[in-house]
């Protein structure tokens, strides 16, 4: 029982990270129909930039803010330099471009930073908190609360602000959005910036627990995508639920089956969803217009 609770704690923690990656996917996917394979690299950048700014002597909070802002800028640059010029290209082309961006960012991070594993101190110390016989790290609470705050923030943004509604309108019908005067190029910029910032935030929050190196992005992208699919592509609620569920599945697999193969869970989930319910948990089936 204690063990189960322990697995649940660790599952929810990594699940919150996957949810953040999945939310990042969702924002860009909704605004542009692009599946951004460089999403995991945003998480890596968030962690790495914080590490190096902190080690250079910057106070941790400032280093974290710098990491989020710098990553957001990289996200915007990615859109301007690589996605916008290929507007309207076939899906395969866009996939190759974003996977290229992912490799490019990895390669750059390896040169600018290094190939080592890094961490920085947890925000509120490393003393585990005991709950019902299991323990949870204070940093895990930071991750979980962070994911919830981002989710609520996004929900408020999309339902309460004019800009958020403009993003949704663009997602719904690009041409119509342009006709009613929405600057869809700005919406794209915003989506990439926001998505990158959320990814970076996930990296900042989770690095003290899982550590970071230049090559963690691909696995995170895969898991974030699995989470997004599990919840239903394009659905923010689904991204949150899918992320948490995937995290739990992974932690339980690691705990009860094999810790070596916990990373296989994401792939099994992807195949399972494709076989059994391609629309995911919260997705709607749609008739595509020809």
């Amino acid at each position, binding site marked *: 029982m204690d063990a189960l609770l322990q697995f649940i704690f660790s599952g929810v923690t990594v699940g919150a990270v996957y949810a953040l990656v999945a939310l990042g996917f969702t924002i860009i996917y909704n605004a542009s129909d692009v599946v951004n394979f460089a999403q995991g690299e945003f998480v890596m950048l968030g962690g790495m930039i914080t590490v190096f700014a902190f080690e250079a002597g910057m106070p941790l909070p400032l280093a974290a803010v710098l990491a989020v802002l710098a990553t957001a800028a990289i996200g915007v640059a990615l859109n301007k330099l690589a996605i916008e010029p290929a507007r309207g290209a076939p899906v395969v082309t866009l996939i190759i471009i974003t996977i290229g961006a992912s490799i*490019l960012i990895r390669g750059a991070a390896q040169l600018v930073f290094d190939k080592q594993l890094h961490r920085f101190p947890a925000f509120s110390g490393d003393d585990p908190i005991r709950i019902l016989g299991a323990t949870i790290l204070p940093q895990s609470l930071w991750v979980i609360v962070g994911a919830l705050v981002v989710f609520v923030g996004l929900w408020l943004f999309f339902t309460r602000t004019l800009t958020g509604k403009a993003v949704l309108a663009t997602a719904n019908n690009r041409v119509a959005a342009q006709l009613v005067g929405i600057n869809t190029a700005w919406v794209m910029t915003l989506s990439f910036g926001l998505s990158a910032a959320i990814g970076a935030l996930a990296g900042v929050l989770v690095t003290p627990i899982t550590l970071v190196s230049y090559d963690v992005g*691909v696995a995170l992208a895969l898991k974030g995508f699995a989470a997004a699919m599990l919840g239903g592509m394009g659905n923010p609620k689904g991204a949150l639920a899918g992320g948490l569920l995937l995290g739990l599945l992974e932690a339980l697999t690691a705990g009860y089956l094999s810790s070596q193969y916990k990373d296989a869970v994401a792939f099994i989930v992807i195949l399972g969803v*494709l076989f059994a319910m391609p629309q995911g948990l919260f997705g709607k089936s749609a008739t595509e217009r020809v």
Partner: protein
Amino acid sequence: MTWRNKWLQLAILAIAIAVLPLFFPSGYYYRVGALIFVNALAVVGLVILIGYAGQISLGHAGFAGIGAYACALAPEHLGLHPALSPVLGAVVSGVLALLIGRPILRLKGYYLAVATLGFGILVSMVLTNERALTGGPDGMQVADLGLRAVLRDLGWRLSGGEFWYGASGIVLVLGAWIALNLFDSPTGRAMRALHGSEVAAATVGVDVARQKLRAFVISAVYASVAGSLLALQNGYITPDVAGFLHSVEMVTMAVLGGVGSVLGATLGAAILTLLPQVLTVFAEYEQLVLGAVMILVMIFLPQGLLPSIARRLRGRDE
């Protein structure tokens, strides 16, 4: 016209393979050449998947890994002759591709990208983790094919480099021949048609999901055979062959040379295989260069190098 085109392309390829050794300054270049041909073979498979059928895979190195480890494992554990191991690898790869591809290929393009990405990671995870069987990250020895010894007994003495240069070259020409046959066949037309418009292809009777699956399985077999050849010629194999980076290298070679063109694929493979030989610092910059090539080619030369050059030349003629 297309008939002539096919034999022209094959002739260019075969002549290049036959003539290049005349310019080799040392025996080492046979090794490099053999590596180029092996990479090119895998990339020709991707030409069928990406160029003909318009689908993508980010995990084809997984199939290369299966082909490679089949050669390492089957002779020892199943008592299979080393020459038959590539066949076993190809069958396993093909069946796996069939099983994974069936549910995925009914859906939109990026599902295949993600699922294949996951598949590749899974294969390299298994190869890395199952130390007892695969030797883990350190890799394992691969038994010799034995064919070179047979040739020696027949009085034909070849160095390892020369032998594998010839053998990989022959397999590449064979692979190119099959890919070019497919291009101008009913199946190839159906694949290219669904690439152009899935709706229109379906309305002329093409079973779109089935043809995508065929392209996926065929390309998986190409990758598997390439992996087998790599294992056999190196005599040693590590899980890197199945790694994500290897998958990305393959896609980059394909898009760089020209994803619809068999000769282009070979050119792309040659360029990206030679780069690390020419630039010793390349290893440091490899990911940076691969990523940049993918983005720049997709934006500025979506057809790839060779078709773009060909178009320019033709434009000048007219």
